[in-house]
């Protein structure tokens, strides 16, 4: 029997500003809906507030980059997209920040949407391009600035914005309440008890050597991680504890979309938990 091949061809769109930038249509309410409320004045003001009064780190990149394209081969996006030149790190700068500066911040909402797509969904801020750049320029810092502009304008992919909101409201990315968190820890302690005698998951143990801070997903969907960590800590004989109060989620999602306020709240919260219990070392998942 002949197997019928089902070819799903997605609609391709050519960018209005750059003929080379061709992508599949990828609807995202975080980008498509949010740009409707943007006015040119607001965009200009936001861009100038972030880029105006250029700091040394911005200047270093903009005034040194000689557009040689040697960073291209560093980028996993470039390599895994058949060396499409629009995925090169320097191309991402050209399509976002260079254009913003060239037009003195006078760009429209459609352009911001395109910028958001480039900086949020086509760059992982891994810094590999800085390893390949002969000058060691901090390209990812520039990408981060454009993310900051997009965040301030509210143009962020919905999934990432939701994680940010979860952090802002609950101090973890999975909407887990403090009750659930403590309950999960005690439940896991019971689970491990079947295999290990007298194994404890110490909550809020003052003066412990190590405080373990999981990722949000671990108590939510990957509880076996907690079980395994407890076993490892127990066998290794580590004097450890987990915080009984918020903040315990070490995955700082707001950092990725450059929401500095929430980002700082999380880091501060983690350290305050450590100070409160006089912890010597923090151990983070990942």
């Amino acid at each position: 029997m002949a197997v019928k091949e089902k070819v799903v061809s997605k609609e391709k769109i050519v960018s209005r500003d750059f003929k080379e930038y061709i992508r599949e249509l990828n609807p995202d309410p975080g980008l498509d809906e949010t740009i409707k409320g943007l006015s040119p004045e607001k965009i200009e003001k936001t861009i100038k507030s972030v880029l105006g009064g250029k700091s040394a780190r911005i200047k270093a990149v903009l005034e040194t980059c000689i557009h040689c394209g040697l960073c291209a081969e560093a980028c996993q996006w470039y390599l895994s997209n058949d060396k499409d030149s629009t995925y090169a790190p320097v191309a991402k700068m050209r399509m976002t920040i260079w254009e913003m500066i060239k037009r003195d911040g006078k760009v429209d909402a459609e352009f911001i949407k395109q910028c958001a797509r480039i900086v949020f969904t086509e760059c992982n801020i891994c810094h590999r391009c800085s390893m390949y750049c002969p000058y060691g320029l901090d390209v990812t810092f520039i990408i981060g600035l454009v993310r900051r502009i997009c965040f301030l304008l509210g143009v962020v992919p919905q999934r990432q914005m939701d994680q940010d909101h979860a952090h802002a409201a609950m101090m973890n990315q999975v909407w887990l309440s403090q009750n659930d968190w403590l309950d999960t820890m005690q439940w896991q302690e019971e689970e491990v008890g079947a295999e290990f005698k007298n194994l404890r998951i110490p909550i809020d143990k003052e003066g412990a050597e190590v405080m373990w801070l999981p990722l949000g997903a671990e108590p939510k969907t990957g509880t076996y991680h907690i079980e395994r960590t407890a076993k490892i800590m127990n066998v290794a004989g580590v004097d450890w504890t987990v915080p009984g109060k918020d903040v315990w989620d070490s995955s700082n999602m707001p950092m990725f979309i450059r929401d500095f306020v929430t980002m700082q709240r999380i880091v501060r919260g983690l350290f305050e938990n450590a100070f409160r219990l006089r912890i010597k070392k923090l151990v983070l998942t990942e």
Partner: protein
Amino acid sequence: MYDFIKDPTLYNLVRGPLVWIAFIVFIGGSIYRVYSFINLAKKDKTIMPFISLKYTLRSLYHWLIPFNSVNWRRRPVITIATFLFHIGLVFTPIFLLSHNILWRESWGITWWTLPEELADIMTLIVILCSVFLFLRRILAPEVKFVTSNSDYLLLFISFAPFMTGFLAYHQLLLVHKTMVILHILFGEIMLIAIPFTRLVHMFYFFLTRSFMGSQFALWHSRDW
């Protein structure tokens, strides 16, 4: 300078006042750019506390020597071209015999000179590498996409003094004196352009490498 006042011809202009202007702008402008850049960097809390001399030198050691970093090894043709281009660009004008004679005539100072044949070959290499870099700008898609008019202009600014110098030395194309005037003029344009265009990477290279070298050391990672 006196020659120009006595006899204000184009040759005496480019040979007299414009040389002074070019060197003052080049040296003063470069010092100003580097000084103000470092001052600006001091205002940023995330730069100066992390700069380390050891890792700066390590970073420079890996990137100033051909084939001493991963990307130099991965792109051998570009590595050879860019190193030959930059060595010729910087050292040929400084150690050229004719330039040395000019220094001696004006100020009575001399230093080492390159053999004339070698200087000629180095000039030719700079010209050929310029052509290579130009072709790369047109032909390589990742470079073409990010190339603007300013890039061609910068390439031309560094190419022109060498092309005219080469033609003047071999007395080709134009009358010798006209070509020399053009050569001096392009040389002065290049000197003036260095502090105020992206050619300033001549100095910023050391600063940005210092930052990234120290930064990667902080992350316990290599930067080559």
